[in-house]
């Protein structure tokens, strides 16, 4: 019974999150448009774009190799796996033990390496430029991310997300200073890793500043659609990891059918708030120069380390 319900929950969650991920992106864009006094394209716009792209004929450079063609699918697979593992609706998913937070970071790194390689595949100047910058952001963000996750995992003595959710979700509400540090660091990494302002601007194709967009310039049609979808999945995955680690209240157990609608409602509210918050952050801050990125991510790393020291000094 428990196994069956676990599998149903797993399938339900994976399909649901994959389907609503573009909506998340649409919501962020819509909120940002409202904040900037524009009417916006509507929250369904990303679906229309995906549909349009899937309809188009793919154009491939003459020299593009098999790696270039496989990368969008690999990327999509990685991100689907990520949202399947993070306890979004319920803990105790059958696939959740497949990866703890460190393995999730590894999974994101795998996706990053493939997209950077694909960026270099055709051999255009923009592709290599994007790959170089993306890997730079990546190596700066990864230690900061791991440090934030280590700090957050110290309280529950576990790096497994379901355990973290169970431990923190069932405790009475206490503000741990170390968690506050870790949460800020995680937020900074989230912005950098998802190519958001202030590190990158998803809405620009300006040569001097673009990172993520530069790598995928050569992609078109279904390949581009899959990459865009994977990007929105990545954003959703990061936000749900953040929710699981720092705001775990309301996530249902597997087999808890009554808890499910509540969990779903709570999740929608949290995602909506997170999206609005992201739009607000992007509206009030400006993109920084590429070589300020080390300072930004270095600060994130330092905050996470401070969080860890705080935990060792104050909370044990």
């Amino acid at each position: 019974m428990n196994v069956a319900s676990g599998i149903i929950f797993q399938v339900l969650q994976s399909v649901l999150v994959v389907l609503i991920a573009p909506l998340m992106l649409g919501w962020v864009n819509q909120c940002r448009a409202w904040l900037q006094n524009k009417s916006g394209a509507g929250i369904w716009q990303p679906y229309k774009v995906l549909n349009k792209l899937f309809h188009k004929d793919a154009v491939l450079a003459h020299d593009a190799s098999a790696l270039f063609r496989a990368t969008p699918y690999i990327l999509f697979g990685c991100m689907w796996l990520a949202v399947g593992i993070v306890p979004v609706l319920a803990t105790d998913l059958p696939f959740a033990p497949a990866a703890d937070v460190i393995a999730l970071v590894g999974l994101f790194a795998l996706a990053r390496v493939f997209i950077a390689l694909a960026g270099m595949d055709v051999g255009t100047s923009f592709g290599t430029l994007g790959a170089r910058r993306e890997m730079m952001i990546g190596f700066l963000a990864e230690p900061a991310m791991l440090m934030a996750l280590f700090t957050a995992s110290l309280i529950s003595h576990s790096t497994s997300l379901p355990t973290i959710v169970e431990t923190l979700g069932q405790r009475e509400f206490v503000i741990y200073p170390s968690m506050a540090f870790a949460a800020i660091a995680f937020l900074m990494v989230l912005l950098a890793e998802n190519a958001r302002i202030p590190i990158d601007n998803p809405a620009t194709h300006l040569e001097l500043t673009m990172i993520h967009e530069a790598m995928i310039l050569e992609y078109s049609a279904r390949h581009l659609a899959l990459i865009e979808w994977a990007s929105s999945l990545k954003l959703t995955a990061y936000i749900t990891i953040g929710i699981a680690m720092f705001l775990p209240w309301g996530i249902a157990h597997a087999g808890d059918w009554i808890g499910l609608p509540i969990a779903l409602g709570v999740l929608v509210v949290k995602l909506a708030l997170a999206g609005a918050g992201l739009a607000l952050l992007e509206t009030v801050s400006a993109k920084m120069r590429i070589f300020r990125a080390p300072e930004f991510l270095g600060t994130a790393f330092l905050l996470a380390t401070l969080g860890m020291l705080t935990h060792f000094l104050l909370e044990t």
Partner: protein
Amino acid sequence: MDFWSLQPIEAAVTLSVIWIGLGVLGLAFARTPRAIVDLLFPAGAAVALALALTGLWAMSAPASTAILPAGLPDLPFHVRLDPLSGFFLLLLGGVSFGISLFSSGYFRVHAQGLGLLCVQYHVFLASMAFVLIADDAYLFMVTWESMALSSYFLVTTEHHSEQNRKAGFIYLLIAHLGAISILLSFGVLHGGHGDYTFDALRQAELNGFWATIAFLLAFFGFGAKAGMLPLHAWLPEAHPAAPSPVSALMSGVMLKTAIYGMIRVIYDLIGDIHWEWGLTVLLFGAATSLFGVLFALMQHDLKRLLAYHSVENIGIILIGIGLSMVFIGSGHPVAGVLGLIAGLYHTLNHAVFKALLFLGAGAILNSTGLRNLNEMGGLIRYMPHTAFYFLVGALAISALPPLNGFVSEWLTFQASLQAPLLESSVVRSIVPIVAAVLALSGALTGMCFVKVYGVAFLGQHRHQLAERPRDASGWERAGMLWLALGCLALGLLPVLMIGQLNSVSQALIHASLSNEAMASGWLWLVPTSSQQASYSPVVFLLVIAAVFGLTYLVVRQIYHGRLRRSDPWDCGFPEQTPRMEDTADGFGQPIRHIFAPIFQIHREIPRPDDPAPVFRQEVEDRHWQWMYLPIARFADFLSGHFGKLQQGRISVYLLYSFVTLIALLVFVQ
């Protein structure tokens, strides 16, 4: 001899002797190089495979010993095969199987001096095997030296080049400094009584001071061989000089014999581990790994770059071992086992993927003659097989799931997350910082291999080639395939190997992982308990593959699969040439910028009105300035003064002898 009563140790000795025999046969066949590559190298590979199986067998068998009828009178060689030696024999055999297969294809092109090369190669292999099974300090040092010498001759195979000779000399020098240090460490352990068998050394009672001296001597002695900072200088010189299969052997296997020696002396012979030692190992490991990867990112010679990555990976192994020593020294053996297993597993993983990468570099060198990344490009179109195997190796070394490099880094992280067990709050805070350094070097490795792969295999070719490069030959492919399968198997089924490593640790430090950790089945890797952390590479691979296939079909079903080829778009810029791609140095530019204080950079920037501008930049290792050159100058100074003793007249030398005799007589009185 009755076959069924065969002991693992007898099998190991026999196989090693067969290796030497194959080498000697190489001399006999020196006139017929075809026979060497068609018969002797594949035969050597078969022996390697048998040795790997022997090692696997020994890992779950009780230790077996033997006394060889060789050595000096009254001082026979003792050999012993316990699970730890068995594990390293497995590594040696498994990796050299692939390398020997590859060599069989690789050395076809280099027919000259093949007989001699065959001797050196197989004696090198056999001496590594004997190092691993030696059970007295005497045999250990003899085989250690023969390993250093045979590899020296292999490094200087192409001795016509001045640079290779210099590289060989530096290697020999540092190897001998290390050997002296190891010898002294055995001397300290010996303590003045008994003989030099490892059993006697184990029994010797040392006080804390002498034990620490023995530890330091062994740590730096073996560290010199392993390429630990600051004794790494020989590594980036020697590896590019050697033929590629030899680089693969040296980097993949020989460095690991140093790790073996370190573990043997510290855990087994000294035994009583202090946590301060662990902290030393941990900090040296962290510094080594970060330094290695930063310098690797600055390289454009592929083999030099891989050599610096060996430095980095030795650092990661040392982090695992250091963590284990810290935990054992502070009385938490179970966490210590986790660190030890992480270190050992990374030792095996590094051997497999680094050998694979060096073989890939060899295949490129053989077909294009290029070692400089800046001249390569687009090789995936000419060498698809090599490109695929190299990609597997690159993903594995970048610690990406679901391949093997990730498993051992993950285990190291898990070990470092046991830090709250420690009592000292200073150490407790250092351990996670070391973990962050590990994360940084892991991510930098990812960047470095995106650079290597992107510049060498992807994009447009930067160099006018005389002919279209051919892909690796059948033997070469077989060798790379074997190692690539190793990366995949060790990545997907880590639980099987970790079960074996658990028995190594049980035999070595009488502690093993908790029962809960081992009871989760082959699918789930669980280091402590399933509540704390778990990882399943098989699920990773299956889900990604399933989504890949499903998406591919669904997109084609609902929409279409139409495809059209055209020129690259590149923001509408039409004048694209290969010179506009990033070179290896260009790709490393952000690193040079961010970590500028670490590097010593010489730049020559052309004047604006220069008609043929050349931009030259060299990044140097500061250790040469800080450490090696002062020591060299000091040695030069000393020898200059001692040189005055050399008068060249017999009467003066007789006077010296006389004075020495008098002095000794006085001293003895």
